[in-house]
């Protein structure tokens, strides 16, 4: 059985937000409407946040700098951190969900069933990565966006939680195709929208259980790290970065100037 995972190369990420837009269109992520974004209610299944790294020249020896623009200069540098759901191997959200609306599928995807969800927001509170979003208001697709709704993904209602599903509808399609043709599913058949859209090829997606696959190799690379590993959630999304990721060195920037996308 596969274990779907993703590797995101932070040195390649340019912060262009294409993944965010691709995710929104693919998954019918609703717009939060006027006056809600500044209250922290905008929904982003995939969100690129800006992070300041205090560089202490901690580039590892013997490893070439992955992105040519980075030097070992002292002082802070800005990094973009794309945040999909981490699809943890031991997800706290699945433990606390009172109605089994969120489950860990056999191939490693943390699923969300909005029609089961009661909106208690316990999963949201328990997610250390804050990767779950609550529908604080009625779904709104302004203007012509109503016609651009993807029929493969159901629209969530008021008062339920939604989150990144690694575009599981694509997996279902690919799986059915493979079943029709009486074969195993091919690696390149199923790719989430954000991976497909990334212009910098910063994201690699595939089966972590297949040791020959690029994603498994990258996840084992010395540059790889996972967010908040100390919490023991074992995320299936890893990041690549040339310097170590120090918890004390990260600090949010642009709490004032970061632009939110809202309707």
């Amino acid at each position: 059985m596969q274990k779907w995972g993703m590797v995101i190369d932070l040195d390649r990420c340019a912060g262009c937000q294409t993944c965010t837009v691709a995710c929104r269109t693919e998954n019918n992520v609703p717009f939060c409407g006027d006056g809600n974004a500044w209250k922290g209610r905008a929904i982003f299944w995939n969100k690129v946040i800006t992070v300041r790294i205090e560089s202490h020249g901690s580039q590892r020896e013997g490893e070439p700098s992955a992105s040519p623009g980075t030097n070992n200069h002292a002082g802070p540098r800005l990094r973009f951190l794309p945040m999909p759901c981490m699809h943890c191997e031991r997800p706290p959200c699945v433990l606390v969900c009172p109605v089994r609306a969120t489950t860990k599928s056999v191939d490693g995807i943390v699923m969300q069933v909005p029609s089961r969800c009661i909106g208690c927001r316990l999963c949201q509170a328990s997610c250390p990565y804050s990767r779950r979003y609550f529908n604080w208001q009625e779904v709104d697709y302004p203007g012509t966006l109503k016609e651009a709704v993807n029929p493969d993904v159901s629209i969530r209602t008021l008062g339920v939680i939604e989150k990144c599903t690694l575009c599981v509808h694509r997996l279902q399609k690919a799986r059915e195709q493979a079943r029709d043709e009486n074969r195993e599913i091919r690696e390149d058949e199923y790719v989430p929208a954000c991976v497909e859209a990334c212009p910098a090829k910063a994201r690699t997606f595939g089966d972590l259980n297949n040791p020959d696959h690029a994603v498994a190799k990258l996840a084992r690379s010395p540059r790889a790290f996972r967010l908040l590993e100390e919490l023991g959630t074992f995320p299936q999304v890893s990041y690549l970065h040339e310097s170590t990721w120090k918890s004390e060195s990260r600090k949010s920037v642009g709490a004032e100037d970061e632009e939110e996308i809202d309707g």
Partner: protein
Amino acid sequence: MGDRDISVYLRPLLRTTWKAYALLAVALAGACWYFYGAFIYQFFHGHRVTGQGTHGAMWGTIVANIVQLIGVSHVGIAISATVRILQLKRYQQLARIAEFVTLVSLTAAVCNIAGDVGRPDRFLYNVVMHGNFTAPFVWSATVITNYLVGSCVYLYLAMRRDIYLCSRVLTRRRWLYRALALGYSDTPEERENLERTVWWCAVIILPIMVSVHSVYGWVFGLQPGRPGWFNPFQAPYFVLGAIVTGFSGVVAVVAIIRRIYRWEQFFPNRLFKGLGVFLGFVTLLYLYFLFSEVLTGLYASPEAERGVFHDLLFGRFSWIAWTATVGGMIVPFWVLFVQGANPKIQSMKIVVVGAVPIFFAMWGWRYLITVPSFFHPHIPYKLAEYSPTLFDWSLVLATYCFAIFFYTALVKLLPILELPEHFVPARPVRPPRIRLATMRGLGFFKRATISFTLASGIGLIAYGIHSRFDVLTPAPAIWISGIVCLWTIPLQVCLIPGFPSRRHMLAHRARQEPALLRPPRPLVTAVGLAERSSSPAIESWVDRHQRAHRGIRRRARMRVWA
């Protein structure tokens, strides 16, 4: 002494002034705002009407209020059960007032939970039918159901004799009390049976009460994802907090009731002093817990954890934290301490002045447990400030309106003081005459139903837990029905007549052999007269003999009034 006059005890039921109607009307308006205004508005427009947000406070005032109300509910049954088990006669009249507080605040808390979840239409059904064994929310649904059903059974059984007396004494709403008494006729057997059952209920309900608030501690304490919550200490901390909150709430309620109904003889100042001493002690203990938690959070804890506690003490929440701690705990503690340490002071007012700030301070700390953790997430998101909207506050206020309405209605409908044993109605209900053979049959029937209920209750709970991982089985529904099943046992014990008692047998024999009715066999005489006696002298004589013979001395001791 007023305790010779039953009308003193039943004051709330006998007379209702326009003030009570006005209070009921205002409180009902508030309750209607909760259910028909706020709740429905939020249901159709979403939680955007509150001040909450995903990146920011995802839980707010209403969650703080849920924890507060669950805390208040904690203490009612605690007081009542402790009074019963330890036979604290001085506090006995406190019991039912406190039980009503439990019932009311637990109901209000469940209403608040329904107001907090995003989909109240699915909430109960999904939790019960698709519940996840590992979720603290499901545990809470289980223990709250258990507690609510258990406290209702306990409250009813403890009140049954008084309801019966009401049905004989009062002229208004007699049908209600007659229906509620469910065939109670106050024979010595029935009374003894009732006492014993209620005592066992009290023993069983105490650990359940601890479980309820522990689960609320675990809702927060089991989350490593939020700094400031993950803490093994959380469950006992919440239980202690519940005791502090509940005691301060009960003190306020008792003071109001004493003031309105002029019941100084039942709730004398020294009773308040005792409550005040205990409240001061638990407040001090809470301060100690708080200090220990804050010290751990600030000393050399992980960065995010330190951020939360720094924010709490010196940051944006500091004004709530310091006001609550100093103005709502330290100062009231000293007020209560000064009274407790000084044998000359015995005052209700001082205790109330101490208790009310403690109640509000605890509310503040509930808020501080819930909200600040959201402002220090592990990942540096842009966060939105949380300022509770008018809507948030109106939900909280309306909840208390609902609680006041419910409480006033209970006070006006049910006897809130325990009627002492020496009140015997002039025309008691004659117990039904059942033939000896029928009695024997009923005895077997009673044993059979109780054993069957016990077996099926335990079986349902076991099966529910056994099938907890089966997606197709509604496991929580199964174990909750098992629990409810078990709670019918005390009712069965009290409601189904059992085997014929010795008194019955003797009476039967007396009917066969009238010679037995002569005074040398006082017990039999007693029985013959007890049911339709008119002379108080004979009655007391009968009583004495019955007690001596039937071992009701323990109960008799408990029923002595100061």
